């Protein structure tokens, strides 16, 4: 049993799904579903085989042996590159999230795709494989490879099955992420070369490079390379402009994957790589990063309120919510980090649900314009109830996952910078405004009886119910998630015990 088999299952499943389209047009989605479930079961079996106590061991960040699962095979010895995969609590959490949202994505596009359904499902599975690879790769070369390659199936999803303005959106998405990726590649190469200068041999392994501690101007520049790559993906203000276009034009499954898991790779990268590899530089940069986070929270919320397009509204709300993640990560204390991890999971679920709703609306009404909607609750009560639930989850109602996340972040942040906390807390109010505004425009208002609309069926309700339960569980009993992530966060915090450095006492 190994992590590479997990990735292989998804990759091979993609191929099978692609070719199964020749037999029957309905077969690919079943293949896809079966593959993801198989991968999930495989992961569970693997985790099940671990000792119970190993989940609470604080992993040693400089050696893979103390991690839950760790495997390493030589790949390109010329440059010290190996096929190194490792999993700790954080990766486990995110891979499980990835696979579960994969199921949602397949369910969301169950009947939507007529054109080449096999290739469509293959691209979904390959995206999942790429994202899982990003969460598991511990060799920086391999990480970069997954980071870049996962974009190609995503690009194809948008470019082939997207809506009216897909060319522009797909291109913008790909270019933003690739160009920022080039900066990261440069930083990775510089880091490996620094390691070469110190030890005399190349290595791209995370465990080797972590102790390198490149400081000074070069370290700062390299940290920026990573930071830009990750914040473009996150996305943080001012690198967010690709997101609304990509989300709006992507097919439903694409939006679900994009918002649910692709954005999380950015947050994961910051937490796993950017900050621990360059602790000093990151902490002196923290005020700027947090400034961007706070700006994103407010700016995203204001723009969300200005939208008439359902998907664009949700996309801008993502910018706002991801600002919280950035704030939490750079506050760099236990509470805030826990909040950031929580936010990654909770936002993944709630946004995936909102995009699924948006997709369902577009499928029925052939428009995303909220001004053309109104009173839909009357036509589709089940859908309305679901929308209401996820709208208030996203605005941070206590008792649901997003509240726990944002509360923890604000609590942790307050110790570091009360002013930032004050600004970010405004985000909670603005979230309430745009979420309720969205509900008002779409599901409330004057009903229109002339519309003949089909309410959510069994398949959609099952998917929705799963996500409702997840959010309630995260809101009422978040302890398992916190416990899973805590040892990892402890180990990362051991790497640098200083907090962010604010110039003077101004903030």
């Amino acid at each position: 049993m190994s992590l590479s088999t997990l990735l292989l299952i998804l990759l091979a499943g993609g191929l099978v799904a692609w070719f199964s389209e020749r037999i029957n047009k309905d077969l690919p989605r079943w293949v896809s579903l079966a593959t993801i479930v198989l991968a999930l079961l495989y992961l569970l079996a693997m985790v099940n085989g671990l000792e119970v106590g190993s989940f609470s061991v604080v992993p040693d960040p400089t050696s893979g042996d103390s991690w839950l699962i760790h495997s390493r095979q030589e790949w390109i010895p010329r440059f010290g590159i190996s096929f190194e995969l490792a999993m700790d609590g954080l990766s486990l959490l995110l891979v499980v999230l990835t696979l579960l949202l994969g199921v949602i994505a397949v369910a969301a596009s169950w009947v939507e795709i007529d054109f080449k359904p096999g290739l469509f499902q293959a691209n979904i599975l390959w995206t999942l494989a790429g994202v899982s690879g990003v969460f598991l790769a511990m060799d920086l070369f391999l990480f970069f490879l997954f980071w870049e390659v996962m974009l190609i199936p995503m690009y194809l999803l948008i470019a082939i099955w997207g809506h009216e303005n897909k060319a522009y959106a797909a291109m913008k998405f790909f270019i933003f992420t690739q160009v920022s990726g080039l900066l990261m590649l440069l930083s990775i190469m510089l880091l490996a070369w620094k390691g070469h200068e110190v030890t005399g041999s190349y290595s791209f392994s995370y465990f080797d490079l972590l102790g390198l501690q490149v400081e000074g101007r070069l370290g700062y520049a390299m940290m920026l390379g990573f930071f830009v790559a990750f914040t473009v993906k996150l996305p943080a203000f001012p690198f967010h402009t690709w997101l609304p276009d990509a989300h709006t034009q992507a097919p439903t499954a694409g939006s679900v994957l994009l918002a649910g898991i692709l954005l999380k790779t950015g947050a994961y990268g910051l937490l796993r790589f950017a900050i621990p590899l360059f602790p000093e530089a990151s902490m002196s940069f923290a005020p700027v990063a947090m400034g961007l986070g706070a700006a994103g929270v407010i700016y995203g919320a204001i723009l969300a309120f200005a939208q008439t397009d359902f998907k664009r509204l949700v996309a801008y709300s993502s910018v706002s919510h991801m600002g919280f993640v950035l704030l939490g990560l750079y506050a760099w204390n236990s509470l805030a980090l826990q909040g950031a991890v929580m936010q990654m999971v909770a936002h993944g679920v709630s946004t995936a649900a909102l995009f699924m709703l948006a997709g369902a609306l577009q499928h029925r009404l052939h428009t995303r314009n909220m001004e053309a909607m109104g009173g839909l609750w009357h036509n589709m009560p089940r859908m309305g109830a679901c929308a209401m639930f996820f709208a208030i989850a996203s605005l941070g109602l206590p008792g649901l996952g997003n509240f726990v996340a944002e509360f923890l972040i604000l609590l942790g942040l307050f110790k570091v910078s009360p002013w930032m906390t004050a600004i970010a807390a405004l985000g909670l109010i603005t979230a309430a405004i745009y979420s309720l505004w969205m509900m008002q425009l779409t599901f409330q208002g004057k009903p229109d009886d002339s519309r003949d609309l089909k309410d959510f069926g069994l398949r959609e309700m099952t998917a929705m119910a799963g996500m409702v339960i997840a959010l309630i569980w995260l809101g009422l009993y978040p302890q398992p998630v916190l416990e899973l992530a805590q040892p990892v966060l402890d180990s990362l915090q051991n790497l640098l015990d200083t907090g962010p450095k604010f110039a003077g006492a101004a903030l």
Partner: protein
Amino acid sequence: MTVNDFQALLPLLVLAIGSTVLMLQIAFWRNIKLTSALTVLTFVAAALSCLPAAELTPRAVTPLLQADQLALLFSALFCVAGLVTTVLSVDYMAQRGDEPEEYFLLLVLSTLGACVLAYSVHLVSLLLGVELLSVALYALIAYPDKSVLPLEAAIKYLVLSGAASATMLFGFALLYAVTGALAFTELGQALAREQANNTILLVAATLIIAGLGFKLSLVPFHMWTPDVYEGAPSPVTGFLASVSKAAIFLALMRWFLESNLFQYDILVDVIGLLAIFSMLVGNLLALQQENVKRMLAYSSIAHMGYLLIVLAVAGNPENRPLAIEAAVYYLIAYTATTLAAFGLLALLSSNGNDRENVQLHDLSGLFWQRPLLACLMLVALLSLAGIPLTAGFIGKFYIFSAAVSGYHWLMLGALVIGSAIGIYYYLRVIFFMTRRPEEHHSLPTAPDGWQIRTLSCALIASILLLGTVPQPLMAYLRSIL
């Protein structure tokens, strides 16, 4: 000359014999099938003959040629490239030339010129190789006699390339006047005795850089590239873009190494400057193109710029081994990729009318009608853009590591900016290929025989293998460099 000398030159001899046989065959019986089969046979035999030749390396055969592993590696590569070009040309030329047989003869001769360049350690053999390569190319470019465009391109290439050769030759003459040496090693020794600020040497260097810069289409000597690439028949364009560039670059690199031209800082700086300009200008101009061939022409300018970084990095002896290794890997990756990209264009234009089907909209919907060909183009474009899992990425990775090892910030900056721009125009082609069927007109028909399928699969496999399992080639390169 001993038997061993002949054995070391085997690839060159096989190509020479092959061209003679072809000439005789054409004189007695015109038959394109037989000619193309003989050409394929010649290339296969020449490529295989590198194996026995490799047993005797390194060996200086006459002062002109040096048979070493590098020369043989590239000879084999050029023969394989010639083979690919032959397979691509059969349908294409059968439609476009009245008497297409001599085309293959010229192709063999051109490949012979490239192989001579791979062996070359002397200014005379350098010139001979360049001329043999180019003169055959003039005729190859002009070969399709049913339209004006190839003729225009050939005249343009003939005049400009002739001028460049003359410039280069004059530079050689000046070098000889000062040093009295023509062999690379002796030239290096003689140069070391001269004062660096010798005006004649400066003029010679300028002339030679201009000449070679033209052949490699470096900015600012690049003006001919898009027109010639566009006008030339697509299989020849692929050959021109891959083999001719790689051969000349290889000879240039060898010259730099053997004569230790790196001792002149100004030369290294000029190379760096040319690299930066080529990367930026090539990529910027490629943005505007609606014609895929012109786009690839500009992108080839940029790729030569990426390669030149390596020469600038090699100025520092500590980083030289890495830089050379990077250059060789990049050349191999680039050759495979370029052949694949132009190969697709050649196939799409095979069923001849006057115009070649190389506009962007000619490719729309290709993905749904000819998945294999579209995959070929997809892999080639991703490789050119330097996306992981392809040969081009490992090549770019090498260039990055070489540039990083010397902390060449300016070049790294240009490399990042250039690659970033490149992503856009490569991606645009992919987007056109994935357009839905209903949005476009009917596609040009392309030949679909087993040869084409095998060739496409082989090219895809080689690009992906070079990108995913690079270790064997890397280890081999380290052992021979």
